[in-house]
């Protein structure tokens, strides 16, 4: 029994609160009843008569509870009436005391927390589908939870701030989302959140403090070796410790992620449109091209973001000038550093009029916005990249119309979401960069071309096909029919057409294949990441759930479904072929 300590705690609280009222009630009842039995009464004929214990209790039952039910066995004597007054008042007071205690018990925060915890543990233990544990429900946590639930993944949230947990319950999610208000550093709470549950796929640590994230990652990977652990961390010291935890631990550093991304865009701008399009950014299409320039850049702010971006830009051979007001981190040497705030004076000193790009990357949103405005005044044509720290400042930053807006929480959430929902996408982007793909088929631009011709539009859907998952595919495969990717992607309405859907990555055995040809055979155990219009992906899922449609798409023959018709067809086929 895993939850037995919890239920015993609840019993204990109830007992502690109710012990005295219950004793008072019992004593008052006992004394009153005893009085009624002992005080002599009279029957209708004037003979002495004693009340029985049963009658005494019956009388108390309707007087003390103030029900006022007026059935009297016989007229009372004066002594009995006196005792009636005493027992009524004493009883009513005892009841009020007991009710007051119950109210206090229900309002007790410890009691409420225990009840909520027990409800949560029950809910988690009933989960029968894969789920993720998200620790920390701040900006990133909320964005990630929204994304996960939109892709149908159940989420269990552990958050210390009770107000944030409340907002969780007020939101409307597509998949089941449960939350517990607790400190995720305590291993017991992670276990309650389902860490040891076989359906638990991943633990994501997204709290504000890096030490807390580290502790969660260590706990999770020690207690459950199979679970995927994602940690948001921007400090190098912690990353070293995390790296020792094994392959299942992924470190999410939004600044590093973004800097690498920036380098990739400078190398090939198509990466940006592809990424925005795949992430389903509203309005993002494949033919939009925003090109960060390769000329000189100014970096305002040289914290975690500035340092990573400088490294990335240097790797692309882009020269940088740094403006930083605070002291630099130890062992960092920066040539051409301009100390101070990014005022107009300092920007002019950095030769802004002859600079092609600027990064407003301090950890203050107002500072970043003012850098942006100063820059516009001095050089309206410059490429601007601005960091938006607080998600709630969204409208201001959109109004400021920077070329790129970097929101750390969004970068982290998107990266974690992709790793969880479409793990093959990582392979896709890594290979797009690699030399093998660039050599084949004209590389990235060709891939984008095919995607925009076949799928196009905005907000495509990503969907991973697992050939071992229950459905029509394993059954058809068992028949020994050869299935190629192109068969699955035929349009059920017209076999000769293809769905607006493409395989991005196929993982078959060891080597993943990016953009596999449609003639590639599907084998049991393969996983394929598809990208298509939402409608096409729905049709694809329907095909893979209906073995008759699937067989028709493969062979072009609508096979008989019932036993009788199958038998008849076989019989006629046997007669039709000459012996």
């Amino acid at each position, binding site marked *: 029994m895993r939850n037995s300590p919890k239920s015993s705690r609840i019993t204990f609280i109830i007992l502690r609160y109710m012990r005295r009222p219950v004793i008072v009630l019992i004593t008052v009842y006992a004394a009153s009843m005893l009085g009624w039995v002992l005080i002599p009464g009279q029957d209708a004929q004037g003979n002495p008569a004693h009340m029985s214990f049963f009658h005494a209790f019956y009388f108390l039952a309707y007087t003390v509870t103030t029900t006022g039910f007026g059935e009297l066995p016989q007229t009372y004597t004066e002594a009995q009436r006196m005792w009636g007054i005493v027992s009524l008042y004493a009883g009513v007071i005892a009841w009020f005391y007991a009710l007051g205690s119950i109210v206090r018990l229900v309002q007790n925060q410890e009691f409420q927390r225990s009840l909520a915890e027990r409800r949560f543990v029950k809910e988690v233990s009933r989960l029968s589908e894969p789920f993720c544990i998200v620790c920390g429900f701040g900006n990133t946590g909320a964005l990630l939870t929204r994304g996960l639930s939109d892709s149908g993944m159940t989420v269990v949230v552990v958050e210390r701030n009770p107000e944030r947990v409340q907002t969780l319950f007020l939101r409307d999610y597509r998949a089941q989302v449960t939350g517990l208000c607790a400190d995720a550093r305590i291993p017991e709470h992670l276990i309650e959140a389902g860490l040891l549950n076989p359906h638990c796929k991943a633990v994501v640590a997204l709290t504000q403090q890096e030490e807390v994230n580290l502790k969660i990652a260590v706990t999770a990977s020690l207690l459950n070796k199979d679970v995927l652990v994602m940690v948001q961390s921007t400090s190098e010291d912690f990353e070293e410790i995390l790296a020792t935890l094994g392959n299942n631990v992924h470190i999410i550093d939004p600044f590093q992620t973004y800097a690498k991304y920036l380098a990739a865009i400078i190398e090939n701008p198509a990466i940006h449109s592809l990424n925005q399009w795949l992430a389903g950014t509203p309005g993002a299409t494949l033919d939009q091209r925003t090109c960060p320039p390769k000329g000189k850049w100014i970096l305002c702010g040289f914290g975690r973001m500035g340092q990573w971006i400088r490294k990335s830009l240097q790797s692309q051979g882009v020269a940088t000038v740094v403006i930083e007001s605070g002291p630099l981190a130890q062992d960092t040497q920066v040539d051409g550093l301009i100390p101070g705030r990014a005022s107009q004076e300092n920007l002019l000193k950095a030769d802004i009029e002859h600079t092609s790009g600027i990064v407003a990357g301090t950890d203050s949103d107002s500072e970043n916005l003012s850098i942006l405005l100063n820059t516009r005044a001095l050089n309206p044509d410059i490429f601007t990249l601005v960091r938006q720290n607080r998600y709630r400042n969204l409208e201001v930053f959109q109004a400021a119309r920077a070329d790129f807006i970097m929101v750390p929480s969004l970068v982290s959430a998107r990266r974690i979401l992709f790793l969880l929902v479409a793990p093959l996408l990582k392979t896709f982007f890594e290979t797009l960069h690699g030399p093998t793909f660039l050599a084949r088929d004209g590389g990235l631009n060709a891939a984008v071309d095919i995607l925009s011709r076949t799928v196009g539009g905005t907000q495509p859907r990503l969907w991973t096909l697992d050939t071992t998952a229950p459905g029509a595919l394993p059954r058809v495969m068992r028949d020994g029919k050869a299935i190629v990717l192109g068969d699955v992607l035929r349009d059920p309405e*017209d076999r000769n057409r293809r769905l607006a859907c493409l395989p991005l990555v196929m993982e078959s055995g060891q080597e993943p294949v990016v953009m596999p040809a449609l003639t590639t055979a599907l084998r049991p155990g393969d996983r394929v990441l598809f990208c298509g219009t939402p409608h096409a992906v729905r049709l694809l899922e329907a095909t893979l759930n209906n073995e008759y449609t699937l067989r028709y798409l493969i062979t072009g023959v*609508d096979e008989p479904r019932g036993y009788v018709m199958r038998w008849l067809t076989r019989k006629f086929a046997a007669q039709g072929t000459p012996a």
Partner: protein
Amino acid sequence: MNLERVIFGFFIVLALTLNFGFFIGEIDNPDHHSIVEFFFVVVVNLIATGLKLGDRSQIGAVLLATSLVADLQLIAAAIIWAVAAHVSEVGMIPSVMATIVSLAGGAMVANIISVTMLTSETLMLRR
């Protein structure tokens, strides 16, 4: 055109039309409800059920379920008819006839659902 679909659709629709033919008329008047027609209703319904056996798709399962409901209702009606006519001395009085026809009416609803599902599935295919 697919021969299997023709045969399949033929029996399912025939089950409904025969069922309707038997059902229509004054509910308790034995003259309005022919035993021969009833016999064919039962037979065609059983054949339709047989054709539906073995379909592993979702819609196939529900089609089979509706067919089984119709069979159940019709067999119950047949048993009542046989008992009233031969076992007990009641004979085909109006109340017995009303019971049989109302059971057949229930079977007809199941057949209507069957035909509706068959039609909608065919419409959804669009090929």
